[in-house]
């Protein structure tokens, strides 16, 4: 069996962690800028339109309430998708680390101990 170098193994695993984290969180930041903020801005504009129509008498209070509730659910949908995205990125990071551990261990024992 080859000699197991703890420092090298830790470095390889850490490198995989850093690489995947950078990739994942770059994507998340890009998503905030390109999707979350513009969509929230669109919802904010819709809320302003509803307020204007209520003020000028086009809408009754009941209609305005339903339309506002729709905007809140739309905003909730943006947040839920974002949470889903964060889960996916964390999942990718953990799996990248597991994969790195697997490769380090299998290389050390020179057999596919971990599938």
């Amino acid at each position: 069996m080859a000699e197991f170098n703890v420092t090298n193994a830790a470095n390889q695993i850490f490198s995989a962690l850093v690489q995947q984290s950078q990739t994942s969180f770059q994507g998340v930041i890009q998503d905030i800028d390109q999707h979350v903020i513009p969509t929230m801005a669109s919802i904010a504009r819709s809320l302003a339109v509803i307020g204007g129509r209520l003020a000028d008498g086009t809408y009754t209070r009941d209609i305005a309430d339903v339309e506002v509730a729709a905007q809140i659910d739309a905003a909730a949908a943006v947040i839920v998708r974002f949470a889903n995205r964060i889960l996916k990125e964390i999942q990718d990071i953990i799996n990248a680390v597991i994969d790195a551990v697997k490769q380090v261990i299998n290389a050390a024992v020179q057999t596919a101990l971990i599938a």
Partner: protein
Amino acid sequence: MSILISVMTAGCTVQLTAPYSSDIDTAASSLQSDFLKFAANMQMIAGTPKGYYEQQSSQYSDFEARLAVIKMRSESLSGGVACGQALEAAKKAKIPMAGQIEDSVSTALSEPATSNASCITILAGLAQNNMERLRGQHELRCNPTAKPVLCTTLFSAPPIFNIIVAGPSEAPVVSAVAITLNELVGAERDIKPASKE
């Protein structure tokens, strides 16, 4: 901690999100496309007899049935952690969420039916809520006895992309439905495994 315990049982890989479903992906994308065609058509005929709810009600039956199927399929998929746990973790990590919206999400998630639901299931539920709001408003505002302006303000004027993109959204409910459907489609695409080349 509970998230960790629940994910470490999946062998040598971890599954935090709901598993990807090509069925849900296809069904949600098709629904989104059909809804936008419907909304674009409604922009042309709102305020005329052709746009009355009684002429269009079958569209909502179709959309709502398809959303119900998507939600049922999502509920039947096992794996991943509850979306509520992810939102709770995000809250602890101080990821900013506006107060009223945070309350809305928390309220939805504390209901028994949604407390263990995946993010995809919750998104399908939010899309159902907004589709039903649009149906109800269409019924109330587009009929022979209602003022035509109520129908035209529900759907606004063409082009349809003014409703969808971050532009001057003059049809707030249609825009809200479009956003929830887009988030549903996007969330399913987000969890699609990368193709191995």
